């Protein structure tokens, strides 16, 4: 009765080995390219109203003109996150502004007219990131330095240079990003010689307009296309020094996606120059002031302009 001396690896070793192999295999799963299975076009957007509207715009244009499935990934928390997401291929398209791309993504100094900035951004994006820029949508969402309408009328103010004289008597309110951006407060104050009695109050973007109306502050930096400007009787001072770079709205798109689906480019080109500053303000107001659903607002816009 000869026993087996050369015992094979006992059961427990084999079980442990199985677990380890399974664990390692599960790590490789994601690497086998889940992104490539995706047939839908993923559209991202940042987390404020105008971006949601633009994102919805892109989605509906692509859906109706190409019949490709579209996924919406809105409310991404900012420029950096959108940029990372499109680099990683997690989203295929998102709305951006040329001035923001220039200063925040490419980290170049602000300056130049609309055409120059657009071309510089387009070329750099193509070379460095393999991203394509769509044509300008037609509006300039620049920073709007706003004061109350009655102040503007009373003091006969039209431009920032004129308003600079009154700044020692005023309090300013700005969002956090405006304070920190290279194209933000510091440069503006230098360019126009703004001298406020106290340091500017920093608050959430959504609260700025209200603070201005309620006379807690006298001058704020909002968005040019903010829907509530006329509703609240706010006045936008002209940037006569052209301090702010242009912020033309464009679509940033993954070149790989366009190569696979050239029909997307054709669909997006339909939007070139179709949205004026006023158009954007009206759509923003419909959502912010009248609380309409962005999907409906966008659909009505496209129908009204025969873009569907």
């Amino acid at each position, binding site marked *: 009765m000869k026993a087996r*001396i050369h015992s094979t690896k006992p059961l427990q070793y084999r079980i442990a080995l199985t677990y380890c192999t399974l664990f390692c295999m599960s790590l490789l799963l994601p690497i086998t390219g889940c992104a490539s299975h995706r047939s839908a076009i993923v559209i991202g957007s940042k987390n404020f109203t105008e971006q949601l509207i633009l994102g919805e715009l892109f989605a509906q244009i692509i859906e109706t003109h190409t019949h490709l499935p579209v996924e919406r990934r809105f409310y991404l928390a900012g420029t950096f996150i959108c940029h990372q997401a499109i680099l990683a291929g997690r989203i295929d398209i998102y709305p951006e502004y040329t001035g923001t791309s220039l200063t925040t993504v490419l980290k170049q100094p602000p300056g130049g007219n609309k055409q120059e900035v657009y071309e510089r951004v387009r070329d750099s994006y193509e070379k460095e990131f393999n991203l394509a820029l769509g044509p300008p949508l037609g509006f300039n969402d620049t920073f709007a330095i706003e004061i109350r309408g009655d102040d503007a009328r009373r003091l006969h103010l039209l431009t920032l240079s004129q308003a600079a004289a009154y700044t020692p008597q005023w309090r300013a309110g700005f969002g956090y990003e405006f304070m920190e951006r290279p194209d933000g407060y510091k440069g503006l104050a230098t360019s126009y010689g703004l001298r406020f009695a106290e340091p500017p109050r920093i608050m959430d973007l959504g609260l700025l307009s209200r603070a201005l109306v309620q006379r807690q502050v006298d001058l704020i930096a909002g968005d040019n296309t903010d829907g509530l400007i006329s509703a609240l009787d706010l006045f936008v001072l002209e940037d006569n020094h052209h301090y702010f770079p242009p912020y033309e709205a464009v679509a940033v798109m993954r070149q790989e996606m366009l190569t696979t689906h050239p029909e997307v480019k054709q669909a997006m080109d339909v939007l070139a120059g179709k949205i004026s500053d006023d158009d954007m303000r009206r759509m923003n107001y419909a959502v912010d002031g009248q609380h309409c659903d962005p999907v409906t607002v966008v659909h009505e816009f496209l129908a009204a302009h025969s873009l569907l």
Partner: protein
Amino acid sequence: MSATPTSPAATNGAVIEFDRVFFSLNGRPLLEELTLSVREGETLVLLGRSGSGKTTTLKLINGLLMPVEGEVRVSGRSTKTWDAIRLRRSIGYVIQDGGLFPHFTVERNIALVPRIEGWGHQRIGARVRELLVLVGLDVELASRYPSELSGGQRQRVGVARALAADPPILILDEAFSALDPITRSEMQKEFRALQQRMRKAVVFVTHDLREALLLADRIALMEEGREVVNLPVTEFRVSQHPLVRAYREAFAGPEEAR
């Protein structure tokens, strides 16, 4: 090709020699002026109380410790000049409760030194079988784990493991002290039989007089790090040295008390 040392034994035939060895740890002297020798085929039993320096002496043989003064020689060469690994692989070491690796089967435990010495697969298998038979174990136990064995079985495996590469020297530290009296007695008898067949140089540590008398060719009685008495077993049995008598009385039974 076994793991025997390459140098010949010293001129007087001693395989292990202690030459006025002094050892201390953290300032405390553990061994003083220790001089003894063990010949090929001889079994020396180190007898003494706990703390008398017996285990320290064993560790000086296989190079786990080095003498502070004096010299320990194995096969004529000082342990300081031996390659530690080669020295230890040519000495079989058995401790209380076997010191078996709990995550190795009996077979892998026994085959430990042959495997790291690069023996062939077949040869190892045959040797393990041979040793299991030699120490009186059922060959089927090879694939069991130490936790599945009784104390006595574990001890036998420990002895088999020590003998695996056929070393010329065996050192055992209280190897049978944790066993029940019946098993212990069996192990002693079997070990005695094994010794007479194999003729290795054996140093056996115990605090049990009866065990010493049964297994020894010579007995060295140690007390507080010194060797007090070193006699052939027959002389030790009738020695009138006070410490020897004290020992005999401690183990007094009608036959031993005198």
